[in-house]
């Protein structure tokens, strides 16, 4: 219901600069809930297993999520602007394929890395080109390119594997960047990129424009925002970071098969959604995504320390995703009404 003040336009209302600070509002913020979830995961795991808090164990645990987490950063921006990229895992496969061939051909680490990044960039730009030119929802386009990219990897490799890589390249994925605190390169890159993404999204004008596009793409265009150009850039960066994921993953496992990173797109989307980015666009923070990465990564690690099978962990994470989204809705009693 709207009400129009019928007083003259000269009248002034007193409007505060910001909301009054309330503890309840702070605690109900999604990030606060994630912090509590993270605390629960850490405390629970520490009580259950004496190995959990060991720095070397934790460092090894980061291997299992850092590559995905890097890709989750850009997926968060895509979902924020109402897009989605289902082809990221397939881009990892295609980039990894190219890295594998370069490895077989005897090139050194730098050409391998450059190739991986370049293939990712091209795949991402192709996605972006199709999405912005066709006007078809990106979920459809990227289902198509997902099949295309992974299909190319399958056609090229069949049931073979590529296993020849220079040692200096493998070291990137298998040794620590710093010895103390023990920090794998992938985790370090994730932290650096997370800070860059957070500053970009929350402190720059281009970042602000992403919120506008997500909140209302039509109004964004009317407000002078180059919506299609931004979409194209985001998809391209998504490809580039998938290429980076491929560089790190291939170095870590030292083998490329066509089913590499299979199903990662869903894991990554889970990180983003649990991080509080609304699938309907316009709402989300990088801080939330980073916290969700840690919640998911440490929960997985803790459960595997307890010898829970991976697939059962998936059940629990699926439940966590649905419950964490459903719980606030149930609590606020927002169902039924609209």
């Amino acid at each position: 219901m709207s009400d129009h003040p019928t007083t003259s336009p000269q009248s002034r209302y007193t409007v505060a600069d910001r909301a009054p600070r309330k503890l309840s509002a702070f605690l109900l913020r999604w990030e606060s809930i994630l912090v509590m979830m993270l605390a629960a995961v850490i405390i629970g795991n520490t009580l259950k297993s004496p190995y959990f808090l060991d720095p070397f164990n934790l460092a090894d645990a980061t291997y299992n999520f850092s590559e995905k987490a890097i890709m989750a950063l850009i997926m968060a921006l895509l979902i924020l602007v109402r897009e989605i990229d289902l082809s990221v895992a397939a881009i990892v496969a295609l980039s990894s394929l190219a890295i594998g061939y370069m490895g077989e051909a005897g090139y050194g680490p730098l050409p391998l890395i450059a190739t991986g990044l370049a293939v990712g960039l091209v795949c991402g730009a192709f996605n972006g080109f199709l999405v912005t030119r066709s006007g078809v929802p990106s979920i459809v386009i990227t289902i198509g390119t997902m099949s295309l990219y992974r299909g190319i990897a399958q056609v090229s490799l069949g049931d073979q594997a590529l296993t020849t890589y220079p040692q200096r390249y493998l070291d990137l994925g298998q040794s620590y960047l710093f010895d103390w605190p023990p920090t794998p390169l992938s985790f370090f890159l994730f932290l650096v990129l997370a800070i860059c993404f957070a500053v970009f999204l929350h402190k720059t004008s281009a970042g602000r424009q992403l919120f506008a596009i997500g909140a209302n793409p039509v109004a964004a265009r009317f407000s002078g925002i180059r919506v299609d150009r931004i979409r194209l850039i985001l998809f391209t960066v998504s490809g580039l970071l998938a290429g980076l994921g491929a560089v790190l993953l291939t170095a870590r496992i030292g083998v490329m098969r066509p089913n590499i990173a299979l199903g990662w797109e869903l894991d990554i989307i889970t990180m983003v959604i649990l991080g509080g980015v609304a699938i309907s666009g316009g709402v989300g923070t990088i801080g939330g995504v980073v916290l969700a990465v840690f919640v998911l990564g440490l929960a997985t690690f803790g459960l595997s320390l307890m010898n829970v099978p991976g697939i059962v962990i998936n059940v629990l994470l699926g439940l966590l995703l649905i419950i964490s989204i459903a719980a606030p809705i149930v609590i606020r009693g927002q169902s039924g009404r609209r």
Partner: protein
Amino acid sequence: MSLLLRYREGILALIIALMVTGISLYAPPFGTLSNGVGVLNDTAFLFMMALAQMIVILTRGIDLSVAANLALTGMLTGMFNMVFPDLPALIYVALALAIGGGLGLINGSLIAFLRIPPIVVTLGTLAIFRGTIVVVDGGSQVNTSDMSSTFAGFPKLELFGLSSVFWIAAIVAVLAWFFLGQTRSGRGLYAVGGNPVAARYCGISLPYQQMLAYGISGAVAGMSGYLWVARYGVAYVEIASGYELTVIAACVIGGVSIGGGVGTVAGTLLGALFIGVIVNALPVMQVSPFWQMAISGAVILAAVIINARAEGRALKLILPEARRAAAQAKR
């Protein structure tokens, strides 16, 4: 619009016919009747799963959990069969429909009553359903040797050379055509997908239509689960892994709009047939089966881009000469 759609379905049918002709010229065994029957038998699962997925997409939804539902229901019916062998096959079908439908209603209630976006819900239940398989069977498999003859034999029954799975898919298609075209609930799906606000003003309940769509999607997936397990003689955690994307691809190729409210039974069947023909043609043409994924990816993109041209934003016809030109073009 219906004319244009028919036109587009006509084009798709024509492309499939050309493909079949071309492949048959290149590899004559492909053109034989028995191979045609084989293609239809092999594509039967895709036919029904794509129709069920279309029903969900019509409501502006998506069901990513169908393949996981298929695997879980297949496993559960297989385990039920180990405990109760030798029941009539239709009991297993009914059980699979019920389990699958129940799983679908879980999706439906989260979406309809809690208003969680469908992609989030079914992404979650995808992981949950698959994982539950391991929880219920402890990581083992159900093999042919564990299956009773009524259980395993049913999908292999044939009529006119076509398997019972194909005939079931045919029944599903006829029911879907009747349901979507001739019933109020069926038209209601188009209404809520086409314009949810308008549907509400027409007294059409969105939660009811969503429960219906996800229930149907789950039931068809569940039934396919039993048939799949019995036909291929094995149930384990990985069966039909990633199949949800093939199913969605069939819908997209068949002209179902992800934006909701647009899609036909004939289009979806043709979309599934298209993928079926490619999958079956590759071995006949002695092309590596690894090509399948790349080709279906390319085809989805082609289909999508052709559709996009047809649906691009048209300028309004304001100038009198533009209106006259358009009227003449129509004639």
